[in-house]
């Protein structure tokens, strides 16, 4: 119970700080909208072509918008030594990880909630269906978890803005591929059972990343 209370204290802290500055959400939202409109007008896709391209465009936009938020979220902890404040508290290191990852997940979900209806309208694809939303949720969980762990590593390097995508995109590759493939097939009319292989890959990826992050986050942030 204490563990969960501390996780939510960290989430509430991140949300409170964001409500004062709005710097993470505004950067993610502006990037997402720009990417969406650029892709939409540059590719001028319709019908089957739109359904084929939409998953890739959607996940590329979400992945790069996510990087902006992840990088800033951990940089905020580093700014005035706040990460030391967290490490000094009598709290399990994995609670710090879950708190930060959950906060990052919330920011990504907020952006996706704004992005998906617009995306559906501009590309004329039915993204707002429960199966697609479930795949989006699974992909986002794994991406936010992997991103939180790697952002904690990247934030201590000199070129942190460059380092995070260099580390994260290869690690998130399986989740991104599975999410793109599952979304694409669902848009072509497949059912969740038809894309069961991709969904299972996403679930296994999420569990693995969460377990590895939970075990290693302490070592990453301590030194």
């Amino acid at each position, binding site marked *: 119970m204490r563990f969960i209370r501390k996780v939510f204290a960290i989430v509430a*802290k991140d949300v409170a700080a964001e409500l004062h500055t709005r710097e993470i959400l505004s950067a993610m939202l502006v990037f997402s909208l720009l990417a969406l409109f650029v892709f939409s007008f540059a590719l001028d896709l319709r019908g089957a072509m739109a359904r084929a391209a939409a998953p890739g465009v959607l996940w590329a936009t979400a992945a790069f918008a996510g990087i902006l938020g992840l990088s800033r979220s951990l940089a905020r902890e580093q700014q*005035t030594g*706040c990460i030391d*404040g967290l490490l*000094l*508290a*009598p709290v399990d290191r994995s609670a710090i990880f879950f708190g930060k990852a959950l906060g990052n997940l919330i920011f990504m979900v907020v952006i996706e909630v704004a992005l998906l209806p617009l995306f559906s309208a501009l590309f004329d694809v039915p993204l707002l269906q429960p199966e697609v939303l479930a795949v989006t949720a699974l992909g986002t969980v794994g991406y936010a978890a992997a991103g939180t762990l790697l952002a904690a590593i990247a934030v201590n390097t000199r070129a942190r803005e460059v380092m995070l995508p260099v580390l994260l995109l290869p690690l998130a590759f399986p989740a991104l591929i599975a999410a793109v493939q599952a979304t694409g097939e669902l848009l072509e009319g497949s059912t969740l059972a038809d894309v069961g292989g991709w969904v299972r890959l996403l679930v296994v990826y999420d569990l693995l990343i969460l377990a590895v992050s939970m075990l290693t986050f302490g070592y990453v942030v301590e030194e």
Partner: protein
Amino acid sequence: MIEAHGLIKSFGPRAALDGVDLTVERGECVTVVGPNGAGKTTLLRILATLTRPTSGTVRIGGLDPNRTGSEVRRLIGFLSHRTLLYEDMTAEQNLRFYARMYDLEDGPARVDELLGQVGLADRRHDLVRTFSRGMQQRLAVARALLHRPPLLLLDEPYTGLDPQASRSLTDLLTGLAGEGCTILLTTHDLDQGLAVGQRVVVLARGRVVYDERREAIGAEGFVEMYHRLTG
């Protein structure tokens, strides 16, 4: 309260600490002085469980930080020249967040009490980034004292403070020492070190080169000896 034996901390080929032995009794106020790069911050970070030593042992309140990290961290209040405060949150939000992290049952009341003590009650709803350096450090003191720690580790706490704020901090530390709080403070300012500590330890090149009670130290002789010991 603190027992450190044979502490070595290496960063690559360079040893920041090279076999430090240090014992601090309960209720003692000890100042560690030394030039920049002597290993003061590294020593405090190891004692605060923020950094692991390459070798050597540490006991805080008789507990091993490697085995009972959370219990040890409850005993420690840590203050450094970095405030460990979220600048994009208000003073009250910062303290309430840390109160939740330390499971304080009287969190809101304790936050009110400390904001009053450090003279920031009327600025409680202001963002920390709008505070002056002195006000931020006062809030950092409140953060460090929030969970009533019996041990205070202070790393260059006077950095960036004006004379008035420095005097307030010295008064606060003297008061806490009088109440039985154990204090270990690092500084490169010899006058400040002699003013606060009951015992003075000189650290040079990662080693303890001098350890004496303040009564046994003559101010002028100490300065001369300090320069000789630290090269």
